């Protein structure tokens, strides 16, 4: 590897280590040596883990899957910001070139009551699935293949729905929210489906079911801090929360 490259850096990592859900956790300090600026953040952790394994230390557990910013599995709060603070970037797409030699980096798991820690940086995000299961779908009969233009959808509506559908369900909105609320996540699905003719039919039932599920999973309420939008790697806008509120009021008043 690039061990003798003059561009490599040495970093100090402060990583949250926790053996299991009920074990007490604490920050441990590790050296990351000869880190190439071309590595991704997770590759850097892979290398650190190699060293840890060689020295007989349990490697740092962290979630990841696609490593290309689309699956939403990676979940790390880096230096106090979910996904590390580079705009519209998941932590797997964050590169070491945005750090400097000698930097100290704090790495912590998502923290919220609804996301219990499984181990180290791995949290259980299935509460987000529970919210989707409560109403984040349409129950239409699929039947045969529909004619492409049978249901006309104006371009602005389709774009709006697509913007909301960009959510990858990573949970950064919850991790960033001072209230541990999943309102941005929930609103993205409510807004996406409410904007489309197929979703409109169940809009009222859906908004009730999904906000109740959100509450039932132990998430907090939205206080309009907008930290979620700042943390979101897909740039989901808080306008969708306003849309959810609108949908809720429409449903409640009818």
């Amino acid at each position: 590897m690039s061990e003798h490259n003059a561009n490599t850096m040495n970093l100090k990592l402060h990583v949250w280590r926790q053996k299991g859900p009920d074990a007490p956790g604490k920050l441990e300090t590790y050296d990351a040596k000869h880190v190439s600026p071309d590595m991704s953040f997770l590759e850097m952790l892979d290398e650190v883990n190699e060293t840890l394994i060689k020295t007989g230390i349990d490697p740092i557990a962290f979630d990841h899957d696609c490593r290309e910013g689309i699956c939403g599995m990676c979940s790390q709060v880096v230096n106090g910001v979910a996904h590390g603070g580079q705009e519209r970037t998941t932590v797997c797409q964050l590169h070491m070139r945005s750090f400097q030699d000698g930097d100290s980096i704090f790495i912590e798991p998502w923290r919220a009551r609804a996301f219990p820690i499984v181990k180290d940086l791995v949290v259980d995000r299935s509460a987000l699935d529970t919210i989707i299961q409560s109403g984040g779908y349409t129950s239409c009969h699929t039947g045969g293949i529909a004619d492409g233009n049978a249901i006309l959808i104006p371009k602005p509506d389709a774009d709006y729905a697509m913007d909301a559908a960009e959510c990858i369900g990573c949970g950064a909105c919850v991790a960033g929210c001072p209230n541990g609320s999943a309102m941005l996540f929930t609103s993205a699905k409510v807004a996406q489906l409410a904007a489309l003719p197929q979703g409109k039919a169940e809009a009222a039932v859906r908004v009730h079911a999904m906000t109740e599920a959100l509450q039932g999973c132990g998430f907090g309420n939205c206080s309009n801090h907008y930290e979620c939008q700042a943390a979101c790697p897909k740039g989901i806008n808080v306008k969708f929360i306003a849309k959810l509120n609108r949908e809720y009021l429409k449903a409640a008043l009818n």
Partner: protein
Amino acid sequence: MQILKSVVGRKVFMAITGQCMVLFAVVHMLGNSSIFIGPDGINAYAKHLHDLGPLVWIFRAGLFAFVAIHIFYGIQLTLENSAANPTVYAVKKQIKATFASTSMIWTGLLIALFVTFHILHFTARVTPGIVKGVDALGRYDVFTMVVSAFKNGGIAFIYVAAMCALFFHLSHGIQSFFQTMGWNTDRTQCTISTIGKAVAFILLAGYAVIPLSILASALIK
């Protein structure tokens, strides 16, 4: 009722009660500024209000109910929110949240304390040293009461400090109202937020100028 338990429903009650209090605060500030016309201004204004009789009490009861609802849900939501976020990060950066947005419960409770004091002070007039009297036309002399109260630096400070708390509360609260009611999009967010802060500042300036100018003229004399 489902709406009284809902994450959105309770926020809507907070937002509407809060915004009605803002309307009250604007009208109250405009009424107060009649003090700059002199004793004839504010004493006449106070007499007109009191002459409304039972209407005054209906209005007070309504406003009290709004304040109670707002405080109740404010405390309930804040407690739920901190329970939903029990562990703190070793390092946490705020990107969009502000001092105003994260201290709503504290600025709110300061305002509640102040309102209690303010009612005992100028409405019930039971605080020590309050000047009660009537003017030449037999009207309750609000002008002298207020002017003599604010010559006391401590009292003037309490009023100005409370208005600063109100400023912070509303600099988040007013824009938050529009978001909670769903009357917001990404196109309007920036404008609504600026207008909210401007209204909050106008209220701060409009209220604080009264104790400050009275105190300043007392100090100059």
